[in-house]
């Protein structure tokens, strides 16, 4: 019987399973960071347990780290609690023999940026991390999902997890993406249609011509936000592009071992006719640049649209949710999206802080100036992204336009470090969550693509990027 990518990875990783019980699933790669791991290590110590596979465990510092430009100077963490958390991670990694990419290392960055970048993320692997955006790694054809701290402790101690087999959901995006429409717009459009709980209990596989045509980094943007639709994980079948992405990366196999691995990776792809538990089809040609107007990622509209009128919504619960959201966001029903003025712009996060994202934003920014009413910041996803961008001169383009060019970290995606919105500030953000207070108590977040964020910084309000000549090139090459 034809099998899906998910079927093949799942079946390969079942260590033990009794009838009617969850499977004991082997975990190939465990990524950890400072915020969701301290209590797990504390639990190991309290029970005299060791880390079963330190060689399959990698740590980085990302959530708490300040991103102020520091040249070659040392990192200074003024927040005592954050410093203690970073120090705890360093001490735990030393004690348990885990490789740590700390802030002084050239590999440091957001956990979901560095995994693929270092070649740790590979097709067919099971990957977990105490972070919901672990779904990102599914872009390479891995089964990757976020877990809580108790499960982090469980994986540290056993390299396994008990998992009930999720259902599979195929989301097929047919046709070709119009110019000026990005991977971010695909996923926001999908979440707008299926809702923030639309994929709960499911692993999504993204398929179709528009998905196959995405670059690896664009695939990461799509898979990253699977969790915003409630999915357990999101994944894309490996193809030649996946193989080429991994060639030569630090932790990828080398030489003849790479060729053997590549053949295995390609054989993981879902087979024609393989059955999913559910399937939805979207037309790429219908997708427009998206802007969220509310307080969850499903509250989204095309840039040409308007803020909805809650009174016009048919369902009482949706009406109430929209009313609460508009009150929080300080928006009137019927407001044109393009007329919404901004105070801040954030280009960064595990969703959109890779080199291609920064290149896309820089194409819009080049030769222009940020609006004097907007404070705009660019936070690369990793040290490697930062170095590559600087090699291309992107830092100059951003700085010349009045944007801040900062050090890598999660930054204002969740505002655990000093990068936050003040109450009432309105931000166009390339991150993944527009929840109340997410970027700072009282802050108002609108999720958009890097191109849309860059253009909004220059105009001082949202603009339809398709009307700018820089965006008039095709978004995808034909494959």
């Amino acid at each position, binding site marked *: 019987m034809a099998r899906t990518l998910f079927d093949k990875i799942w079946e390969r990783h079942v260590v*033990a399973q009794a009838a009617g019980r969850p499977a004991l699933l082997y975990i190939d790669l465990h990524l950890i960071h400072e915020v969701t791991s301290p209590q797990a290590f*504390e639990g190991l110590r309290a029970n005299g347990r060791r880390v079963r596979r330190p060689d399959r465990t990698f740590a980085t510092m990302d959530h708490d780290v300040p991103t102020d430009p520091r040249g070659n100077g040392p990192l200074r963490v003024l927040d005592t609690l954050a410093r*203690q958390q970073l120090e705890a991670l360093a001490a735990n990694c030393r004690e348990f023999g885990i490789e740590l990419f700390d802030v002084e290392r050239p590999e440091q960055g957001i956990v979901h940026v560095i995994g693929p970048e270092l070649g740790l993320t590979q097709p067919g692997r099971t990957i977990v991390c105490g972070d919901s955006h672990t779904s990102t790694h599914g872009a390479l054809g891995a089964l990757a999902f976020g877990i809580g701290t108790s499960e982090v402790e*469980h994986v540290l101690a*056993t*390299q396994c997890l008990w998992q009930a087999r999720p259902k599979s959901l195929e989301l097929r995006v047919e046709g070709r993406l119009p110019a000026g429409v990005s991977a971010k717009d695909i996923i926001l459009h999908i979440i707008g249609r299926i809702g*923030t*709980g639309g994929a709960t209990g499911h692993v999504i596989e993204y398929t179709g011509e528009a998905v196959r045509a995405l670059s690896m980094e664009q695939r990461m943007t799509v898979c990253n936000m699977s969790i915003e639709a409630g999915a357990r994980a999101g994944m894309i079948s490996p193809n030649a592009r996946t193989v080429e992405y991994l060639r030569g990366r630090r932790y990828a196999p080398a030489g003849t071992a790479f060729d053997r691995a590549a053949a295995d990776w390609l054989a993981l792809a879902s087979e024609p006719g393989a059955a999913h538990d559910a399937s939805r089809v979207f037309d790429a040609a219908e997708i427009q640049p998206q802007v969220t107007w509310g307080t969850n990622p499903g509250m989204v509209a095309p840039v040409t649209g308007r803020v909805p009128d809650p009174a016009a919504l048919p369902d009482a619960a949706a009406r109430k949710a929209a009313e609460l959201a508009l009150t929080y966001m300080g928006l009137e029903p019927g407001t044109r999206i393009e007329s919404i003025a901004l105070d801040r712009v954030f280009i960064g996060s595990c969703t959109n802080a890779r080199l291609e994202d920064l290149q896309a934003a820089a194409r819009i920014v080049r030769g222009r100036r940020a609006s004097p009413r907007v404070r705009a910041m660019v936070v690369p996803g990793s040290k490697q992204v930062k170095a590559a961008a600087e090699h291309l001169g992107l830092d100059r383009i951003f700085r010349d336009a009045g944007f801040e060019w900062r050090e890598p970290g999660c930054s204002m995606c969740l505002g*655990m470090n000093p990068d936050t919105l003040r109450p009432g500030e309105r931000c166009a953000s390339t991150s993944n969550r527009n929840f109340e207070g997410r970027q700072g108590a009282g802050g108002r977040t609108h999720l958009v693509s890097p191109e849309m964020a860059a253009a909004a910084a220059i105009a001082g309000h949202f603009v339809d990027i398709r009307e700018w000549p820089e965006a008039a090139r095709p978004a995808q090459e034909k494959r």
Partner: protein
Amino acid sequence: MEPFTQLRGVVAPLDRANVDTDQIIPKQFLKVVRRTGLGEGLFYDWRRLADGRPDPAFPLNQPAYAHAKILLARENFGCGSSREHAPWALLDFGIRAIIAPSFADIFANNCGQNGMLSLPLPAAQVEQLFQNVAARPGMELLIDLPARRVSDDAGWSAEFAMDPYRQQRLIEGLDDIALTLRQAADISAYEKQHEGA
């Protein structure tokens, strides 16, 4: 882990859908290295007015719900971040069960890891419960996990569905890691087979 068999307690209504874990426990409370003491941060922004004083309209600030053990909410409760600080904060406040039409996967998992029950009921029954609580603020519910039944003292009751294994784990309060370590031989055999070690 404390076994979960029967729980009797006040049910507090939180009439919101898509309650995300950023609301349950905002980021500034995640910079801790312990699991305890997070109740202070529970629904931090919703519990306060703009000037920082407690908002008397927020249910958990009201005397009737000060000792609530059960929370009632709308669909997709606990969506968003994987932070286990969310169930830790609820537990620290005194809440051991949440009733809603649906839950986010990671949140429900995290509850189970802490001896807490995420209890899904059909939306119509949740609506009925909201009406009951509105009529009798401070009313108690009895959750009987072995019987998979929830009831009040006025004759309302509902059966709920639950995966039998999950139910058993909660009732026995089992430590997952200790259980898994009993299968160390299976894990080693798996590693040997797949790594050729």
